[in-house]
């Protein structure tokens, strides 16, 4: 009861602010007579979105699939690497600095290189970029989670004469889940961003990124914005899905007092 009302109130403020922002934008374009090629009005973008809706959906599907494939592959690799690194010290000492370095370099910069390597008829270069982008936050967080054990839990398991495997199974893995999902949440938005940006460097013209560049190149600004809106929606969708997965997998974190 209280939670329902709480989230309703929680939603109200951002929705009001967003609507006010859109209204101000519309008013600025109309009253200020801003040229449509500088800034199309929200209603113009909406009209364009209606007009090319089918193409927008198809493009969003193509980009979304790239992001999803990369997200799944990157997460799987990161979890595998993190569990190995948590167990094998030498591996940890080798991988952690590499992951830190990878976090510092803009991985999308690799997109043109991959595009050249794998040719213009493949979605593979985009998926590779997403995989690499996703790997870093999931690996770093999962490893931290696996290495963080409450000292009381450690002593308790020792008092039970529990084996290393039992400690991993009953304490380490469940304790790491919230960390893994923090990484996944970060990775979910990053996956969409990198999937879109990777398309800016040529290759197949199927996704949102390619459509945005070609619409902008043709001065079809409302249409470009329509694809941008779709990209935003796709990013939010991925984030919300990651959040929903997190809530389903770690129900104890929601159990408030009551």
């Amino acid at each position: 009861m209280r939670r329902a009302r709480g989230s309703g109130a929680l939603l109200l403020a951002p929705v009001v602010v967003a609507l006010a922002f859109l209204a101000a934008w519309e008013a600025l374009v109309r009253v200020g007579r801003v040229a449509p090629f500088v800034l199309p009005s929200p209603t113009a973008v909406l009209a364009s979105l209606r007009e090319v809706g089918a193409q927008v959906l198809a493009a969003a599907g193509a980009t979304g699939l790239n992001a999803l494939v990369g997200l799944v592959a990157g997460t799987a690799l990161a979890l595998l690497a993190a569990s190995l690194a948590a167990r094998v010290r030498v591996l940890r000492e080798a991988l952690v600095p590499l992951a830190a370095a990878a976090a510092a370099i803009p991985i999308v910069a690799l997109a043109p290189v991959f595009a050249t390597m794998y040719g213009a008829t493949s979605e593979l270069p985009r998926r590779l970029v997403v995989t690499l982008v996703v790997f870093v936050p999931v690996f770093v967080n999962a490893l931290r989670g696996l290495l963080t054990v409450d000292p009381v839990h450690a002593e308790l398991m020792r008092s039970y004469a529990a084996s290393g495997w039992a400690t991993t199974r009953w304490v380490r893995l469940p304790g790491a889940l919230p960390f893994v999902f923090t990484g996944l949440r970060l990775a979910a938005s990053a996956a969409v961003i990198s999937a879109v940006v990777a398309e800016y460097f040529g290759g197949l013209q199927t996704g949102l990124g390619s459509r945005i560049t070609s619409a902008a190149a043709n001065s079809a600004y409302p249409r470009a914005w329509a694809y941008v809106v779709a990209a935003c929606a796709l990013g939010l969708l991925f984030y919300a899905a990651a959040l929903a997965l997190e809530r389903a997998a770690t129900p104890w974190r929601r159990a408030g007092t009551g």
Partner: protein
Amino acid sequence: MSSTRTTPGATPAGGPGTAAAPAPGGPAATPAVEVRGVVRRFGAVTALDGIDLVIERGELVSLIGPSGCGKSTLLRVVADLVEPTEGEVRVGGKSAHRARLDQDYGIAFQAAGLLEWRTVAGNVELPLQLHGVGRAARRERARELLDLVGLADFARHRPSQLSGGMQQRVAIARALAERPSLLLMDEPFGALDEMTRERLQAELLAVRAATGCTVVFVTHSVPEAVFLSDRVVVMSARPGRVAAVVPVRLGTAERDDAVRATPAFAASVVQVRAALRATEAPR
């Protein structure tokens, strides 16, 4: 206190396979805990220095002293969570290591240390599950124990839904899961408010009366030590030594809150305070 005293029941250390079944309450029963000449150093710091302590079966003994006196370390040495640098510890006649492997003791810490992803019942069942007890038996035992600590209605709750005092009761139930003959408690009520604390003290005495287990209880509260204990072991700091052992005689009747108002209680509190103060004097 003579450290050369030999215990009547002390037998040459046999292998674990030859250990005879303990005869609780028998005249020649081995003590619950024997600590002989234990020294523990952490680097250059001597945490424990020449500790000798014998705790009989069924006794409730408190360890009290200023912070840094090594009372928690001593408890961990008995639990085989910390190894002594020198000296020997026997728990129920076995080495402390063997006793840990055999799950002869239950332990509770200042932090309840519940696994937040498990239900209350799941937490109580954890040690049973780790040691291969079947599901039905686990359920049954958890229900019994939660009844014992008055949390039967909370079996399916998550730890985060409970108050600190309730979490600590779950931790105590968990410590009792395998019917240990020895209960080790490291300031288990230290983080609780006074009211909850006094209620849990009375509950601990009830649990002990129901199970007959030996209890070693680390605390920094003098009234708590006096209310609970048969003997209070007063320790001094740097290095940690046993400064005095104060027997508490509050009559044989079961202790309840009324005891706290008796002259005998007040006298014991004064005695323990004096012993504690004496540990600070020579500095």
